[in-house]
């Protein structure tokens, strides 16, 4: 069967016509030149081609046709990125597979690896079926600080390998050891970093999914609570009781809207207070459609982001004040305007204000503006925000809460 050569072909059929490597250089100079070339490859060539390039240099120096340069991976398997498919043609592995687990090590190369000793042979050895014949070979384990970290091998030179070849191979392997070790250590660190990063991403994704789930549950629960209030209210014959229930429903709606706004933030950290105030004002005007027809809404809202702990009291304050204005500020189809404002003051405090040009003080108007549970809630919530409350009822309502954006 004809086999396609893979990317990392190391078959060098032209080896004999190649010029001998600088024959005028003395043995140690020649060795130094080889070391320098290998060191250069290690420094400049990326992982994909490095093994192949180093092997090329070794094959040239040893005038050999075939060879292997591989490393031991963290699992203890021999990995040969530079090996050609011609060499292990009859592989038990798939096309891309050049990984040999320790328990599959056999033959001369297996012996060299397990004993961590050089093996030189000038006689044809037994090879697996389909494997290219090995006539002569030198297998040198690459060892760093007593630890086996790789394998360097050449094979099938036209002449016998001798002690000089063995010494040269061992010298090369000895030089490669520390650099290969550093490279492998770097790869392991990089892999660890990548897997840590992947794990972090996974955990973050899980956190997001969990938070989404929780917020969804909160919203659903509020919807169920509102439905129960709605159903219960159907039985009330007294207007006062029904109104009370409506007020409670309104407050829960305001809270639900804050959660909705938080959900829109994507990171679940901050609520866009401006957008929330706008939506809440619009929703309240929509519910009180009777008054809303006569009363205009004006919003003057700055961009501000706050935590849900700040957003909910703000929402409840707005809910009370806007409802109060709509319900009591404009009796008898009186026309007018309600202004909702959110401002960031120069001292860094936020100011939330609801103003209207409706009826004035409670005493003048004879109404119940400025008293009641709603305004008591506003007082409490302002305190909760660590803020200052200012209420004026001279010409309509003018209620302001100034509070620090970061409560605590």
């Amino acid at each position: 069967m004809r086999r396609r050569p893979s990317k990392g072909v190391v078959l060098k059929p032209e080896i004999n016509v190649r010029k001998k490597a600088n024959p005028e250089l003395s043995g140690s100079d020649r060795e130094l030149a080889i070391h320098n070339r290998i060191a250069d490859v290690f420094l400049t060539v990326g992982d994909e081609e490095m093994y192949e390039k180093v092997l090329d240099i070794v094959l040239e120096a040893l005038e050999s046709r075939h060879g292997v340069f591989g490393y031991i991976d963290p699992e203890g398997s021999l990995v040969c990125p530079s090996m050609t498919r011609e060499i292990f043609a009859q592989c038990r592995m798939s096309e891309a597979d050049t990984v040999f687990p320790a328990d599959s090590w056999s033959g001369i190369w297996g012996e060299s690896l397990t004993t961590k000793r050089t093996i030189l042979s000038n006689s044809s050895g037994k090879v697996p079926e389909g494997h290219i014949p090995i006539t002569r070979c030198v297998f040198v384990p690459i060892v760093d600080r007593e630890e086996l970290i790789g394998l360097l091998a050449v094979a099938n030179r036209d002449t016998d390998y001798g002690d000089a070849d063995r010494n040269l191979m061992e010298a090369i392997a000895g030089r490669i050891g520390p650099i290969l070790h550093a490279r492998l250590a770097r790869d392991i660190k990089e892999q660890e970093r990548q897997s840590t990063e992947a794990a972090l991403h996974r955990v973050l994704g899980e956190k997001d999914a969990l938070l989404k789930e929780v917020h969804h549950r909160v919203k659903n629960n509020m919807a169920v609570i509102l439905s129960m209030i709605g159903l219960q209210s159907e039985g009330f014959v007294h207007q006062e009781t029904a109104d009370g229930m409506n007020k409670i429903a309104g407050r829960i709606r305001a809270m639900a809207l804050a959660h909705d706004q938080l959900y829109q933030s994507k990171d679940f950290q901050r609520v866009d207070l401006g957008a929330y105030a706008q939506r809440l004002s619009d929703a309240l005007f929509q519910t009180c459609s009777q008054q809303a027809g006569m009363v205009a809404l004006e919003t003057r809202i700055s961009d501000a982001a706050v935590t849900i702990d700040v957003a909910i009291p703000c929402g409840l304050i707005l809910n009370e004040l806007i409802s109060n204005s709509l319900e009591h500020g404009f009796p008898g189809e009186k026309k007018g305007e309600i202004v909702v404002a959110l401002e960031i003051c120069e001292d860094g405090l936020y100011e939330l204000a609801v103003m209207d040009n409706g009826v004035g003080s409670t005493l003048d108007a004879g109404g119940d503006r400025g008293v009641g549970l709603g305004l008591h809630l506003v007082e409490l919530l302002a305190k909760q925000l660590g803020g200052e409350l200012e209420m004026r009822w001279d010409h309509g309502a003018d209620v302001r809460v100034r509070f620090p954006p970061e409560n605590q």
Partner: protein
Amino acid sequence: MTGPKILVVEDEFIVAFELKGALEGMGYTVCGMVSSGEDAIECAERERPDCVLMDVSLRGEMDGIEAARHIRGRFGTRSAFLSGFPVEEMMRRVADVRPIGIFVKPLEYGELEQTLGTFFLSGASEID
């Protein structure tokens, strides 16, 4: 009752029950109340509602948008959607099935009444 028939698909039964009362108060007939996409398709086939009020997140494999797509494809019936959180990705999918409206829970009934009223009055319910 003779008002247009509405199928309610909502997996919170209390919410569904209150919704039924509200819809009947508006003069509609609630022809079915189911809590899964699969049941919704089956009920739509049997009852042939004039529109479906569909919660987006449902129990079971199929979500509300998927169920609405099936119902529209098979019976031509359009849906109005209810959602706790109308996020962008969901809105894109909803847009594909020509929704009558999208309502954020907790529901504002005034808004719902207005949208449904417009839908039936305009005759849009007949076209699809």
